[in-house]
């Protein structure tokens, strides 16, 4: 591990100033991803600014929303009674991720800023444009089972690993960020970005910007939502694909409004707005959901190794809707 300086400020503005002033500085949260990357040499920061001493670790409920401090641990958030009742997809997404120990350590902001588990990104002996800009992409034409099928570029086919981020993208969450110039609010769907020519940037955050909170708006959709994840083993594995779905039905059972976001398919949580548009005003039958999913998947790009993801997205989304219609969340 390369040497680094360590700071643990008590004030958010001081933490932001420390990182903003130093291009080689990184924020440290629970450490469950970053400490591993320090060992692997995936990242080599000169300074770590530990943000876990900043407070920002409470969940506050108002009539209109839930405000989650960035340092709320994944396990505490998943178990929060207000979240379980009002935003079950978020609780389900957290519980579908990592292990009991890691959920006790990982923070809300840190979960969103975890890096891809693309095998080449984590293997410093191989070229990877995300790890080392301009070095090439080993996943294109390499081991491709985990590759993106939507929105990839010639530079990068990595997928974003967070389950939480998928549920947040579906339920219109807002990410609150503190930077050197003050606070700004980013829709969760715009926090992560597609790789295009710069896969080294996972998010739209500027260097030194710190996630301080996540806000979840209350809605009938959010209260009737769930998260469905497909993976290689029953527990403690990243998503092959996943779907967060929120559903609001009219009295006659037609879809008044719907939210769909997918994980495991792209460099960012993929909000399936074209599928949502196709379902509004329709009865949410299995055929209708499949047809809506297929509209969204029109632009998908697959190869022999990743083609399985398309039927899996169809099945996962359909099953999530089925569970919501059954009354489970």
């Amino acid at each position, binding site marked *: 591990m390369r040497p680094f300086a360590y700071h643990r400020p008590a004030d958010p503005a001081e933490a932001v100033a420390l990182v903003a002033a130093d291009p080689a500085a990184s924020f440290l949260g629970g450490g469950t991803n970053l400490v591993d990357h320090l060992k692997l040499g995936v990242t080599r920061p000169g300074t770590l600014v530990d943000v876990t001493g900043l407070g920002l670790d409470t969940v506050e409920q108002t009539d209109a929303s839930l405000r989650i401090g960035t340092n709320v641990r994944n396990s505490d958030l998943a178990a929060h009674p207000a979240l379980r009742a009002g935003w079950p997809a978020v609780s389900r997404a957290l519980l579908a991720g990592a292990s009991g120990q*890691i959920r006790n350590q990982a923070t809300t902001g840190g979960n969103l800023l975890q890096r891809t588990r693309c095998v080449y990104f984590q293997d410093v002996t191989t070229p990877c444009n995300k790890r080392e800009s301009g070095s090439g992409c080993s996943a294109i034409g390499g081991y491709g089972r985990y590759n993106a099928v939507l929105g990839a570029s010639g530079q990068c086919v990595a997928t974003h690993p967070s389950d939480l981020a998928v549920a947040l993208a579906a339920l219109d969450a807002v990410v609150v960020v503190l930077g050197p110039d003050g606070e700004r609010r980013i829709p969760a769907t715009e926090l992560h970005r597609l790789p295009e020519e710069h896969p080294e940037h996972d998010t739209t955050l500027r260097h030194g910007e710190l996630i301080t909170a996540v806000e979840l708006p209350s809605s009938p959709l959010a209260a009737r939502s769930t998260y469905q994840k497909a993976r290689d083993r029953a527990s403690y594995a990243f998503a092959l694909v996943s779907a967060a779905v929120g559903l609001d039905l009219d009295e006659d059972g037609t879809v008044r409004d719907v939210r769909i976001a997918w994980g495991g398919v792209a460099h960012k949580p993929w909000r399936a707005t074209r599928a949502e548009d196709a379902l509004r005003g329709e009865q949410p039958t299995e055929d209708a959901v499949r047809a809506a999913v297929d509209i969204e998947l029109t632009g998908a790009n697959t190869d022999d190794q990743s083609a399985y993801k398309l039927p899996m997205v169809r099945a996962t989304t359909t099953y999530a809707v089925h569970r919501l219609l059954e009354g489970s969340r």
Partner: protein
Amino acid sequence: MSVQLSVDGRRVDVNVDPRTTLLDLLRERLDVIAPKKGCDHGQCGSCTVLLDGRRHLTCLALAVAQDGAEIVTAEGLAGGPDGEHDLHAMQRAFLEHDGYQCGYCTPGQICSAVGMLAELADGHPSHVSPDLTAAPKATDEEIRERMSGNLCRCGAYVGILAAIRQSAQASA
């Protein structure tokens, strides 16, 4: 950098390089060898301890970031000097049910199981809980899911599950 910890009831004040993981501090500097280095990447759970009462991986934690923490390892779970009667109820259950073969993952399994049952008692749901808002029960399915962060390469899972099931019933 200076770090103060409580480790199995003992006050510790040490100077560490910021790169030192909590696991390496415990094992290499403090001779607390109950937590084991299995994968060293957070995938196996053999380094699990209770940190401020919650199960925690020590391989993915920098020691400098844990200043002030109270750490209990599998060794500290036992009440006093070595001897069967001083063992924690979970340790006795692992003995009774053969919850191990080589024993390398066992200290992590035991700390994880103790922390897991506390989470259950606090009403934390899991991925397999059918109703997110109901109080979860210590079914076999729940125990398996909640222990998925602890691997046993000997495959002693049947005994591990039986030991935890017994402890859950005893504490219910």
